[in-house]
Structures are given as C-alpha cells and as structure tokens.
C-alpha cells in the first residue's frame, strides 16, 4: 500500500505522450518553490478550499471532536482537536473540505491507470510516478510498474533522486524512464532551497548513467537559485563528465500552486521569488545547446 494524493489522467507535462500520473505522498526535500505542497508529509491531511465553501456548516455538524467552527461565515479548523476521522470531508457537499492522501494498493492504482491504455499506445505515453518522492515507495512503484509493463504500458518516475543507491538501482530495473531534477549545482544554495545537499542526488545521476537507465534531466529555473549562466554551465559540465545524458529540459518556475498553500493554511515560501523571463530561458537554453545538448523548454521555444 502507498499513500496516493492524486491520480491524474491525461497528464501532458509528466513525460512523453498522454500519461496518467500517480502522485505519491511524502518527500524528504522541502523545495521552496514546490508546487505540490500537499505531497510533503507522508500521511493523509486535510485541506480547506475557501473559494469552494458554501458556508453551510455541515462539516461543523459532522465533526464530533469539535475541531470545526464557523466564524464570520468562514470555517475554522483546529488541528489540535482533530481526530482525523475526516467526517467533515464526507459531509462537505462542495469539495471545500478535501482529504489529501488515500491508501492505495499497486493493483488498485494499476487498474485505474490501465483504463487509458489505448491512449498511451496511440500517443507513446504511459504512466508516471510522481510526488512527493516516489522513491519513498520503491516496492509500490516496482509492483505497480510491473503490472503495467506486463500490459505493455511504458512507465516513468519523476524523482529528486534523494534516495539510497540500492533503491535507485532497484527502481531502475523496473521502470522505463527517469525524470530527474538538478535543482542547482551550488551546494550551499541547494541546502538553502531544499534542506539537503545535492551530493547524493548527483551521485545517483551518475549511477543511473552507469546502469544504462533512460533519463531526462530537468532543471527548474528559479530566479536566485538556478537561473544563472554559471549554474547551467556547471550542470552541463557535470553531465558531460559523468553521464551519457545529453538532453535537458528547462522548467520555468510557476506559481500555479498558490491556492494549494492556501488550502493547507501554509505560507508559500516562494511567493516573493519572481518568475523567470523568456529571455533568461532562451539564454540558458542557448548555453546548453552550445555545449551539445538537446534542449526542451517548458516556456519559450528557444
């Protein structure tokens, strides 16, 4: 079993073709710009979408622990009283109270994902395990992937690679594609941005190259952390010196997750970071191209 917080069908940004993305809950990193804040902790948790709330008070009525109350037409939730029974979610008619995270077996996840097999076959798509950090659940990923691959479905993981060598090796043997981030080559900045060193991540990228895995390297372009020319040159040099990977996808940071932070009642750490402009994306892309890389770019067609 694994805690899944979303299974998103017709995903178009998580690998080739039409895909289903299985989002797993829990992540060892705390990236400032994370756009899936509901994935951070492994256990289920409650979200509240004020914009969906009709103020009907049914959740207050349903909560036996007295954790919910109404004040000025707004629902308040006292986490210290919450018994995590999630009766409020069941009682909510509009989806304003949402439960992030549901236990799912590999068989159940595969069954949902296989519903779109025909679309994968026709578009060169498949299933992507994302998160959170899917490598926190190597057995789930491998078992689900095994079922899917038996049916001829391509599988991928979107991972930070912040995991042990053994886990990386194990997962490499059971999925078709890794999509990995190099968030920044600067050790200090990496710690500042994610809470951890990038040492293990870079080691694992090297390992994947040795293992012969198919890998798409991605660089999230975040102003102040990874948008410098120097950083992208170092990234390219690292890949040239240590791996056979010669394709890099540049992902422009976005702030589409703002509402999720609101739903979770958390501050968005990246709220003051500006978005990268097209010119920056083009410049970084050109540097990579000059170094012989094929560049994919999520914003500008550089």
């Amino acid at each position, binding site marked *: 079993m694994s805690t899944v917080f979303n299974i*998103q*069908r*017709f*995903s*178009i*940004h998580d690998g*080739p*073709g*039409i895909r289903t993305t299985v989002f797993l809950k829990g992540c060892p990193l705390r990236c400032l710009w994370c756009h899936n804040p509901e994935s951070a902790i492994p256990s289920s948790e409650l979200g509240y979408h004020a914009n969906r709330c009709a103020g*009907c008070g*049914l959740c207050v*009525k*349903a909560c036996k622990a007295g954790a919910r109350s109404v004040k000025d037409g707004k629902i308040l939730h006292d986490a210290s009283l919450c018994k995590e029974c999630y009766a409020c979610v*069941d*009682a*909510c*008619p509009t989806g304003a109270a949402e439960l992030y995270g549901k236990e799912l077996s590999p068989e159940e996840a595969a069954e949902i994902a296989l*519903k*779109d097999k*025909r*679309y994968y076959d*026709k*578009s*060169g*798509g498949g299933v992507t395990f994302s998160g959170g950090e899917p490598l926190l659940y190597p057995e789930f990923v491998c078992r689900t992937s095994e079922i899917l691959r038996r049916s001829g479905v391509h599988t991928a993981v979107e991972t930070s690679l912040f995991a042990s060598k053994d886990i990386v090796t194990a997962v490499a043997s059971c999925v078709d594609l890794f999509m990995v981030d190099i968030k920044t080559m600067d050790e200090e900045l990496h710690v500042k941005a994610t809470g951890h060193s990038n040492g293990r991540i870079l080691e694992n990228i090297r390992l994947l190259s040795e293992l012969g895995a198919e890998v798409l390297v991605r660089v999230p372009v975040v102003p102040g952390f990874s948008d410098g020319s120097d950083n992208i040159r170092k990234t390219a040099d690292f890949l040239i010196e240590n791996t056979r990977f010669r394709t890099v996808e540049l992902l422009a940071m976005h702030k589409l997750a703002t509402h999720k932070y609101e739903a979770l009642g958390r501050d968005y750490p990246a709220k003051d970071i500006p978005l990268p402009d097209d010119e920056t994306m083009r410049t970084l892309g050109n540097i990579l191209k000059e170094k012989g890389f094929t560049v994919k770019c999520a914003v500008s067609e550089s």
Partner: protein
Amino acid sequence: MKMQEKASASHEEIIEMLRNKSPLSTLTEHWFLLDEAWKEVEGLPQPMQFAKGLTYILERASVPVAEHDLFLGRFIDKVPDDEEEKRYKEIWSREEHLKPHHNPIVMHNHTHITLDWKSILRHGLSGYISKSEAKLKELRDAGADEKELIFIESMLIAYRACSTYISRYSEAAKEAGQDELAEICGEVALGAPSTFREALQLFLLILNIDYLYAGNLNPTICYGRLDEMLLPLYEADLAAGRLTREDAGYLIDDFNCKACLTLGRGEHQMADPRQGGNITGFDRNNAYDDPTYIVIGGYTAKGKPSSPLTKLFLERIQPRYENPLYVYRWTKEDPEDVFELLCDKLRQNSSILVYNDETVIPAMLNAGIAKEDALEYTMHGCNWPDVPSYSTCISVGGPIPKMIMAILLDGSSLRRNYGSIDEIYEAVGDHFRASVRERFAAYRARYRSDPQPPSEYLSITECFTEGVIEKARNIFDGGVRYPVVYTLIRNIGTAADIMAALDEVAFTKKICTLEQLAKALEDDFASAPELRTQCLKAAKFGTDNNAVDKHAVRLMNTLLDIVDQESVNEKGEKDVISFNVTITDMLHIQEGATLCATPDGRRCGAPLSENLSPTVGNVESVTALLNSVSKLPFDRISSGALNVRLRKDAVKGDEGLVRMCALLSAYLEKGGLQLQLSVADTAELRQAQEHPEDYKDLMVRITGYSAVFVDMSRNSQEEFIRRDELSV
C-alpha cells in the same frame, strides 16, 4: 485577377465581415420581397402561392457580382435605415408571423435537410423541368385530382423560376465583364453541370434560392457529400487539363467564403428582442443565422473511405470561419495522412463535427434504412441525421431526467414506493412506452395509410427531394422513401447521475428511504442538506466509473428496446423508422429551469447535462470523459453531439498533434459517436468578455454550429465557460 488573388480577396472580405459587420445588419431585401410576394399571391392554393411567390422573388432579387467572385451568389444585407427599420419591424410585429405553419408573411419552408444534390448534379434544372412536365402530362392523361395537378404544375413553375434566377446572374456577370462566370451560370441555368466549378456554382445558387425563400424556419441546409459527388467531375477536369489541384483549392476557398458570408452577425442564443433583450439575435438574424453543412469522408458504395477530394476539402477548411460546418465521416480505414490532417484542423479550432461511420451506419441499418442509403447518410444542422429521400415531422421522447421524475414524484409526493432500482427502470420504460405507442400510432395513421391524400402543401424542399415528383406528394404525405420519427433521448448525463444516485442512496447503501428523498426533493434539499451531500457524492457520469456508466447504458438500452419493440406492427413487420438522437441544442437550460431538484443532488432549476456531455463540473479528465461516453450503445443512435473543450497547451506543437490524434482515434475506435472540439482556455474567454474588440475571430462550437464567442449573449457565454475545460 488570378484565381489565387480572387480567393485571397474573398478571404479578406470574410475576415472584415466577421470583425466589423454590424449586429444590426439584416436581409432587408429578403424580408421585403417575401412580404411583397405574399401580397401578390394571396388567395391562390398554397402550392401556387409558393411557386408564384418564388417567381416574384427570383425575378427581383439582387444578383450582385464582385470583381473577386469565383462563384456568384451573395445576399445584400445591411443595417436598415429608419424607413426600412420601420417596415421591417412592422412585418415582424404582425400576429400571423408567429404562426408556425402556412405563415403568410414568410410563407413556409421545411428546411433542415440535405437536398438531393446528386440528382441536381446529374440532371440540372432542365432535367427537373422535363420530369415535372412529363409527370403533369401523365397525371392529366390519367384524369388525376386537381390538387395533384396544381402540386406538380407549381413545381414546374418553381423550377423555371430557379432557372430564371441563375440566368439573371449570368446576365449580371456579363454586364460586369465577368465572361467566364457569365458562361458558367448560363450553362447551369438549365443544363447539368459538366465541370467541378459549374457543379459548385449550381449548388451554391440552389442553396441561395432556398435561403432566399426561407423565412421563419432556419434554412439549415446540408450540401451532402461533396467529395464523393464531385470526384468524377474533378478527375475529368484534371485529366482534360481544365483544372489543377491548386485551382480547385481556390474554388473551394471561395465556396467556403460564400457560405461564411451568408451568415449574419450574431447567433440564436441571443435574447429575443421582443422580450426586451438584445437588438440582435434569433429573430433579427434567423434568415441567415444557420449553419450550412458539408459532408466529407466516409464509406461509399465502392467501399472507399477517402478520395483525393476528401483531403483537398479538408486542407481548405479555414479555422476562423463560422460557416460552413464540415461533417467529417470517420472510418477505421481512413488513410493516416488524412486523419492527421483532420486532427490538425481540429486543434486549430475549426468548425468540424466528426462522426463515426462504424456506429452511424449500423444505427441507420437498425432503423430500417437500406444499406445503399445508410452508406449515404449525412447530417444537417444542428446534428440531425439525414438519408436520401427522407423527411420527418413526428418526434417522441425528450429529457430523460423528466421521465424519471415523472414516475418518481406525483406533484410533490412519492408516486409509488418502488422496491428496487429495477422497478424504477420498469416504470420509466412503461411511461416512455405509452408515449411511443401513441406517437407511433399517429405515424402509422399518417404514413402507412394507403393511398395518401393529395398534397395541398409545397415548398422549395420538395422541389429538390428525391421521390416527390414521382409520387406527386410532398415530403410529409408520402413523397419520400423514409418518413422518419425522431426519438429524442436527451440529457443522458444527468439521467444516469439520477439513476446512480437513486440506486446508491435509496437501495444499495440505504442512506434514506424513497419517501425521505421525495420530501428532500420537494423543498430543494432545504430540510435535508446532509442527504444532498450524499446524493452529490454518488458516482457521476463522465468519470469513467462503471457504477454510473452502467446506468447510462441501461437507460439508453431500456428506451431503445421499447422503440424497437413498438416499431413492429401487429403483423410482426417493422413499419416505423425511428432515428434515435441525443441532441439537446441549448434546451438543457430551459428543461432544467422547469425541473425540480433531482436525486443526483442537482438543485431545482439548474441546467441538465447538454447533448452527450456529463453534467457540468463532473469531468475529471478528457480520457475519462471519452471512455464514459464511448460505453453508450451508439450502434443504435443516429446522431448526437459531444462537446469537448480543450486548453490550447494540450494540443500545442508536434506532441499536441500526436495527443489530438490519439484522443480522437482511441475514442472513435472504442465506439464513440461524435466529437466537436473547441480549443479555448477559460482565461482567454474571460479576456474576450472584457475586451471583445480583440477577440472577434474567437470561434466556439455550441451544439451543431459555431459562434463568434463575443457575439453570444452574456448568459450563453457564461454557460459555455462553465463547460469543463479539459487539460491539466
């Protein structure tokens, strides 16, 4: 001017029209001629009124010629001056104008049909004239009823009027120094077309005649299968060196332009001006606010699903045009390059409706249409099925949610304490069967009595419908091979949601009794909000969930089994032809407005699901939607529409094209019936509302027609935006 330059000038004219035509413009000449014609023919038997009225109009209608015309045939529409506006409003204000039939002002035209273009092509107007002359002689010799003689004589007069109109265009072209067009119109004024261009010219002018004459009913005409019909002429032209593929493309461009030019500004969801709404809208524009359909692709009698002309027509579709609407008939044998081109055009937001031959042809056969005619099926606006020599005037069925609620509630209380979901199905079936039986009896009385009484009514539609001259009967009195009942199976999405919720809440989980549910529905869940939550949480159609999809399938099969059973008479012969259709147009809003709260948690007065779509808000992904819909038994359904709105990024670039092809082919291979796509982001639509002047080219698919988004009323815009935007 070269062909390319002319086609390009026509395109510019369209863009100018789409952007700058005044919503106040209307066909003043059209209205005034109809009004004058009626005064001229007052007191005559109706067929003669029609024929002489048509003659009056066609002898006087403008025959404008523009320097860049590759084809002739355009209407004069303008913003009426004060005097004209006064006269126009006076015509509209007359009480008799509102009468649906035998309308004295605008007379009457059935429209909504695919004319018999094959015969028009084969015989030309001279063929129709000689055929009707011969029939008249035959009837006279046989001492036929006076009414029959008047009927055929009127047809003869009408054909001659058509010929006169085309000759007038020929003369006008000559005067304007357009000798080639003068010659073409001169040829087709009587004779059968002998080239690709002549055929398109004749078709366009016949369609114009239909539009000129049409009044209170929309002239929603389908050109039929142009790629199939015109292929022999096209190939002969190429072989003889009369035409190149490129020039044929420019001809199609201009033909498309003329169809687009025909439409006025606005669309018929706009408010009724007589009820204090907009000054534009259905009433003002109804003479020309109607899609013209062109059908391409599909199986033919020779089995071939695609011809070089299919691809050429497809290539020339202009995404920015509101009209014509192309119906692309998909088959599993379509060439890959043609299919990819189709998907490319779709993702450019073109006005294309895709139909699945693999389901429609079996549905037509199931309805009782002969194979050779089933293969020739077409669609006319909006998404109505059509076969050669067909007509319809009887319909049965309607919104399924209303049928369910009718057996569930008696006024505000529970009608019967049903013991299981099966009993509810049975009651819905019985309720439906009663209305089907009554309507089918009316059908039999009208169409299966022998002999049919002489027709006292004639319109332009009869003149170009197969079988009418031979039988000397109009299309409602036995003049056609296939008199058809439309069986309306509407709002399947909401209906399935209702059954799934009933099943779950009242029977499977036993959350409440039916009596408690009925009470909650009566006060719109005010007394039982918790119960509404449970109802809302029941499985919903469109999420690829068998718990509800099975109800959608069962509901449809329950109703369609009844149609099949009741189509068979006491002797065991199938004698009723039913086209089962699922289209709602925009009626889902009106029907919802008069329906109480429903067991799926829907509030009193809220809209029902539109066409084949799930109830708004229930779609999680486009693949789940397509999977749910394609489970329905479409080999028993003749037509329907599935509106899908995708975000631009979902179909952008090379990968986007691959995705578009994958989505469409997977859906159709799984047995989906139809798909019509709008590629428009919600943010863009909101921007368009704020700055309409910047979005005059933004087209959206409504039900079986396209509309310029910024021309729609605010309510219609909001309704469109509420439809689920699908992507990630």
